[in-house]
């Protein structure tokens, strides 16, 4: 009796993997963009694995966190590697998540019936940024301390609910050891739990509905089914994905070995903030925007306006698919234009924020 039969008798294995066997990936000039989702998932798995390894030595708590990370970097065998991979992979994952979102946006893969996939994906993007924000504080160094201070301060600017949310995030009025404990809880329990559920939903939806085809091609292929070109997911596309994942592994290893992640200086709440404090690169476009808004617009506080506008944009982003249906081409053009603007804005503002003093 083979392993497969054994599994099939108990789990209904054959029925489970049957859809996988039939799954196909559309082949066209832009098919390479389809790799991004898988890479993001792969990097997430790397994060979980290296994160669990780091958990074996990391101690949350204002008087121990920095020292424990220092211990990992200097005393634990290959601790430098695990930690640097975790930090680099985090940044890479956020990058691929954004790239994945933008590619879906431009390929219009959010159209009916894939609205829920988009919604779950956007929420995942927010979760991933939350992972970045909470994880960044955990080594408890000066840069992280002040970045968290500024970041939560901005959250507090939201009218009405801002302050309660800020106090909830900080675990008090100020950023203290209590904040660290909280962020640790978010980073290793709350966010992973939510993310796992959403990733499962997201991937199952993709499985169930199939991979989206760009609109123009879809029209062509429906008219002329023989022109349709596709590739079997298993094993062809999967093998290519494996290659991409291996490349990612190589890149991560090289980054970790040649550019080990910095430890910095232990946070001291009584030292004034270093000049020119900036958040991590994935928050730069928002940060720079807030810096450019004048202190007062009409009667509204500039920063409050900025935060509220970003909040609204986030909400609209979440509900994007529901604004576009198959019929009105006007709306479609608007959204395409908006997508181009959004990409240009995010990239441009990030570069600006990076270069600005």
């Amino acid at each position, binding site marked *: 009796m083979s392993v497969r039969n054994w599994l099939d008798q108990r789990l209904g294995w054959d029925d489970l993997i049957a859809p996988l066997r039939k799954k196909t990936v559309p082949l066209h000039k832009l098919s390479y963009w389809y790799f991004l989702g898988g890479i993001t998932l792969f990097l997430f798995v790397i994060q979980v694995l290296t994160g669990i*390894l780091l958990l*074996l*030595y990391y*101690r949350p708590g204002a*008087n*121990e966190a920095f*020292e*424990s990370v220092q*211990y990992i970097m200097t*005393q*634990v*065998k*290959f*601790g430098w*590697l*695990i930690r640097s991979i975790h930090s680099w992979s985090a940044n890479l994952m956020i990058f691929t998540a954004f790239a994945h979102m933008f590619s879906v946006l431009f390929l219009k893969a959010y159209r009916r019936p894939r609205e829920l996939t988009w919604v779950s994906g956007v929420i995942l993007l927010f979760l991933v940024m939350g992972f970045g924000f909470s994880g960044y504080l955990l080594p408890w160094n000066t840069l992280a301390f002040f970045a968290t201070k500024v970041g939560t301060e901005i959250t507090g600017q939201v009218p009405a609910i801002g302050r309660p949310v800020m106090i909830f995030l900080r675990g008090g009025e100020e950023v203290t050891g209590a904040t660290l404990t909280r962020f640790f809880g978010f980073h290793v329990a709350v966010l992973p739990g939510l993310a796992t559920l959403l990733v499962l939903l997201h991937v199952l939806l993709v499985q169930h509905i199939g991979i989206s085809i760009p609109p123009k091609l879809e029209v062509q292929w429906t008219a002329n089914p023989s022109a349709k070109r596709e590739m079997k997911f298993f094993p062809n596309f999967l093998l290519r994905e494996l290659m991409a994942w*291996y490349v990612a*592994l190589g890149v991560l290893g090289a980054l970790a070995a040649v550019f080990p992640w910095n430890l910095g200086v232990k946070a001291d709440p009584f030292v004034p903030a270093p000049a020119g404090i900036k958040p991590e690169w994935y928050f730069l476009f928002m940060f720079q925007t807030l810096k450019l808004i004048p202190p007062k617009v009409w009667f509204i506080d500039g920063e409050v306006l900025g935060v509220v506008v970003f909040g609204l944009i986030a909400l609209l982003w979440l509900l994007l698919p529901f604004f576009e249906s198959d019929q009105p081409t006007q709306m479609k053009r608007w959204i395409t234009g908006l997508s181009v603007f959004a990409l240009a804005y995010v990239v441009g503002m990030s570069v600006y924020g990076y270069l600005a003093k």
Partner: protein
Amino acid sequence: MVADKISQPEPMRRRVIGIFLGSGLLASFASFIYPVLRYLVPPAVIDPGGDEVVAAKLTELKPNSGKIFRFGNRPGLLIRTVSGEYRAMSATCTHLSCTVQYRDDLHEVWCACHNGKYDLNGRNISGPPPRPLEGFEVQVRGDEIFVRRRREA
């Protein structure tokens, strides 16, 4: 005939692929697993946690003597007074950061650079030092002497 010719390179090709994939996968997995396995083994130097270090063993210091030990990234001074009790403080002189020492003839802490003197509580009593030495807490556990930063009340 033609079919034979075509099938000839097949086993060769299959073997090459097999070698590349097989050994490559093995080698790459080894290069991933090896660091992780080494990582899992706790290092010999334990991380006592917090701002705490082992400054000395119980039998190391005679009364009326001192020892420089490492406290984080800075030197610390552990003193065993004439009466046998332990005192610990930062060993970085508050004047120009030279490393201080215990003088068993003066029963004081002394800085060789500019003749600064501190009492056994770290208070600056003579010479250029403008501030006292930061004091640390001493705790004897078993046969080890632990030193840690003072906790705020």
